[in-house]
């Protein structure tokens, strides 16, 4: 399992988490779009409220 060199290991530990970044940007964009769809597509068309 541990077939990494000391150098490769160090590189990973110092690296920036690009996979996490990609994942979280995709998921959060989805959430923002979904929220806007709910707000302008379902909620407001049902009528004003106050």
């Amino acid at each position, binding site marked *: 399992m541990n077939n990494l060199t000391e150098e490769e290991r160090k590189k990973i530990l110092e690296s920036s988490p690009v996979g996490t*970044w990609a994942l979280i940007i995709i998921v959060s964009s989805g959430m923002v779009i979904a929220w806007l769809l709910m707000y302008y597509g379902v*909620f*407001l068309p*049902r*009528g*004003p*409220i*106050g």
Partner: protein
Amino acid sequence: MHIDKLEKKWAAISLLIAALFVSVILGSAFFHGIHAPSNVETIDSAKLHLSAEFAEDKLGAQQNPDGSLTVRMVAGRYGFFPKTLTLPAETNITFRWVSLDVIHGVHIPMTNMSTMIVPGYVAQVKTLLHQTGDYPMLCNEYCGMGHAHMWSNIKVVSKEQWQALNKQGENHG
């Protein structure tokens, strides 16, 4: 203190996302009057029948001089009173709800007519119903064993139809 550069960027982005939601909400509120129902007004729930506003013959829909409607309703186990209601579409309606017993909640599915009804308080919500048709009006807060049976059917008709109905002398329902 070491913070990863991508994590810093993400923190900024999440702040922007939260700010986006808050600005849409505040924009709706301050420019279009879109609010949660929030008129703080107390009333004695034990004496509704003696009150000027919620005596039985005052309940239901009443047209205001500016063409809008005020609908006064009483919620009590297990129904909404008056039991029948006909309302005009595309008209500003102010619902004023009181409870004669416990906490109820009421909503008309597919519309934004939704409010809690807390005894001791007049719950006021202003909305507008876009579509004509038959709608159920349902209690949505547990109020006892009959909660699932607490409901009415309401009719939403066009403005013209509603005016015609009222000319014939029917004030509510």
